[in-house]
């Protein structure tokens, strides 16, 4: 999965935040909708799409969508 596709899939896990707000350099933890429940959705999405496990610590260790994408690729 390419980075831009990952950004689109990431955005789909959010109900209220408009899709255009999601870019590779978006600091996802600063979004109003970011929280424990959206974190679960992202962990599940990565499990399904990449068949890789990301942890809560992984999510805490990165800031932007691109950093998260790179972290997933490195696993």
């Amino acid at each position, binding site marked *: 999965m390419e980075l831009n596709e990952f950004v689109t899939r990431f955005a789909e896990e959010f109900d209220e935040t408009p899709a255009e707000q999601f870019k590779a350099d978006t600091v996802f933890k600063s979004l109003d909708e970011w929280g*424990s*429940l959206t*974190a*679960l*959705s992202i962990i599940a999405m990565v*499990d399904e799409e990449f068949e890789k*496990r*990301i*942890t*809560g610590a992984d999510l805490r260790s990165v800031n932007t969508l691109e950093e998260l994408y790179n972290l997933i690729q490195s696993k």
Partner: protein
Amino acid sequence: MALVKFNNIGIKALSATVPQNVVKTRSLTDYYTPEAIEKFIEATGIEERRLVQRDQCASDLCYKSACQIFGETDIKREDIDALFFVSQTPDYKSPGTSIILQDKLGLKKSTLVYDVNMSCSGFIHGMLMAYSFLQSPSFNNVMVMVGDTLSKITSVQDKGTGMLLGDAGICCVIGKGEQYGESFFSMNTDGSNIQSVILPAGGSRIPSSEETLKVKEYEDGSIRSLEHVIMVGPDVFSFAISELPRDIKRLLEYAGKSIDEVDKYAFHQANDFMTNYIVKKSKANPDKLLHSIQKYGNTAGTSIPLCMVHNREEIKSNDIILMNAIGAGFAYGTVLLNIADCKILKRQEL
């Protein structure tokens, strides 16, 4: 731990008691926005929970459940050879609550008792202890109680647990009989994750003090003290969806059964999102999954048996039940057993 198989041991009777006090999730608008509440309900399924009054303990809920078994089945007090009380909220730090319950229930003095500190996997851990003892000819009936009053160690303003956790107490009697056939257990521990679910202070490591009782606000907006339980939901979820489907597969292979041969899944009621994901990843039939979280929330170790009591009309004699749970630690496991002549009694209130 190794996979374990037992022959001719099973659950004879099961009962559950919940507090009368109902707390509706939508009533918590002093602490959460209506939007946050709706989102929480949609993800977890939790519409309401039962929370104890200050003077009620987990052992009171378990005691009432035990009395129901003695009152409504042919199991007698003198039949009980051992009693295990599994809880994170015992009556006292010492003595163990199982000792108190032996006397309160009028069980014989030759009864062996243990307190066991386990969280959400408490029921399957307690069952494995009972099954193990029942392999000895000296034991014929073992009482397993699981009870927790998590509301006493939870901050309603904690984002991870404030709307999630509920109180309950269950009792079951496990005994011997050819009708039970084979049962299979897989139990596992990965203690490298203790910070993911922990009650940090009030034990020997960080004793209770004025400082540990002070309520503070954290980065995510949670307000709690060090004597309130912390649960880092994403950590639990990430571990659970990775390891639990694998454990289910391992146990089914050991038992020589396919997931389609299982009649009902009684999984720990952690939250609907997680339970449904584990079912999907295990290629299990979601119609066979028993639910009760809507009415009680996540009640830790009591949630599997409480779910069975809540769905007692659905469970038929000779149903093959698959149980699965993960708790603090992480401690986790899977159980496959046959429901034979088990008396699943109607849920009570206290």
